[in-house]
């Protein structure tokens, strides 16, 4: 069964990505995590995203188009990317989610993937 581990990061997490003092540890942690998923045979895809200030949101209610800079919701944690994993059940998905580096700083949301027939 496939689950998405959605990585929610704080502003500090996002700035750590390019901060000279912090980026080494940041990327090493994610690359180690990603490798651990692969080695365990559960990795099923995923992607990282650029920081939320690069986002552009669009809505067109009743045909009236409205475009704005930034993500839809201003929140303390923003989506930084996601890992897709294939595991037997939610318990195991949560065990993997707990190892995701953002669990300790921002948060992690686990959701089953809707399988399209």
């Amino acid at each position, binding site marked *: 069964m496939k689950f998405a581990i959605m990585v929610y990061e704080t502003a500090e997490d996002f700035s750590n990505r390019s901060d000279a003092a912090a980026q080494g540890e940041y990327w090493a*942690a994610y690359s180690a995590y990603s490798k651990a998923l692969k080695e*365990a045979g559960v990795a099923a895809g995923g992607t990282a995203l650029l920081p939320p200030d690069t986002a552009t949101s669009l809505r067109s209610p009743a045909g009236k188009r409205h475009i704005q800079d930034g993500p839809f919701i201003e929140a303390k944690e923003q989506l930084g990317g996601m890992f897709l994993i294939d595991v037997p059940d939610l318990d195991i998905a949560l065990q993997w989610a707990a*190892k995701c580096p953002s669990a*300790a700083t921002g948060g992690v949301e686990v959701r089953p993937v809707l399988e399209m027939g």
Partner: protein
Amino acid sequence: MSLTNQTIERIGRECYGRLLSILAARSNDLAAAEDALSEAFAEALNRWPEAGIPDNPEAWLLTTARRKRLDGFRRSIIQQGAIEHIGHAIAGEESRRISSQREMDSDSMIEIQDERLKLMFVCAHPAIEETVRTPLMLQTLLGLDAARIASSMLVAPSTMGQRLSRAKRKIRDAKIPFQIPNKEDLDTRLASVLEAIYAAYGLGWDDPSCTSDDTTSLTSEAIWLARTTIDLLPNHPETLGLLSLMLFCDARASARRDDFDRYIPFDEQSLDKWDVRKIEEAEALLRQASKMGEVGPFQLEAAIQSAHTYRRLTGHNNWNEILHLYEGLLRYCQTFGALIGHALALAETDGPQAALSQLDCLDHERVKSHLPYWAARAELLSRAGRLAEAIEAFSRAIGLASDPAVRSFLQERSKQSIA
């Protein structure tokens, strides 16, 4: 929180398991007993602030819970349209305690029996799925709610709730008896009780927010459960061994972090952060257990902790003794923890290569996501000078860490191994 509410909470913590085990022992219905008990607590919160706390609050709660359950029983019978059965119910044993103020006044006369040991044996019964035994114990004996247990066990709260309900239905429907097992079965059945308690300790230990001073942490709760087991069933060396083991660990729980919340490994912990009183109690328990002349895995694990503690306190090299204790432990159980501990002791006596050969024998499929394995392997490879492999193993360990302090520690160690 008002003073009364605090008192009610304290009383609740102290007597929850005792009351629940009495309420459930006859009916076998834990869920109904929990409902009745929580209604009784709600009523206490309602009445005590004004009426004052009764002389024997525990007896008051028991009486009230029994009355609540009888009310519930009546309601359900009426719902079934079998009103004539009420007479039987009232004539039954439960009816002795119907609510008249006069009887409430005589509550202080009730002598509360301790049935908790029976409840422990029910929770750790072989017919109960192994993974639900610890949560069941935490909920029924300590009154922890499902969401709190779920967070500690890394399970979704709804899943935990369903598992606990299913286990309680099984206890009720399969009539798992509230009794102390007979002599032949006692040792094996007690072993599963002790394992469930130790699992609770392990959950608390792995929780980075756990400190030994927090009385609501799972480590404290597990120690309390072990103490209760010893009170109720003295003279079992393994129970003493378990408590000793947990106290040895607990004695250095707060030494695992420095003031900046960085992870500190055992050999670098500052000794003045160790709790000497807990160590002394642990030593005394271990001595007491060993006099009973029946060795078991918990006593051996406690003895290993004792030897490590002694080594740190005196600086005396006793790795041969530690290795020997691990060999003894492996005869009882071949857990990863024991196998890895054995390999690390072997590294001290015979060098890192010998230890690595031991680790190579472990089932690769089963260790691929096991953090302590990769952390130990990385350290050993680094000591053996196999640096490229060490970095690779450190990276595997880093990817498996969920405690950020441990993750940073491993990253630091990985950097040091190249330098």
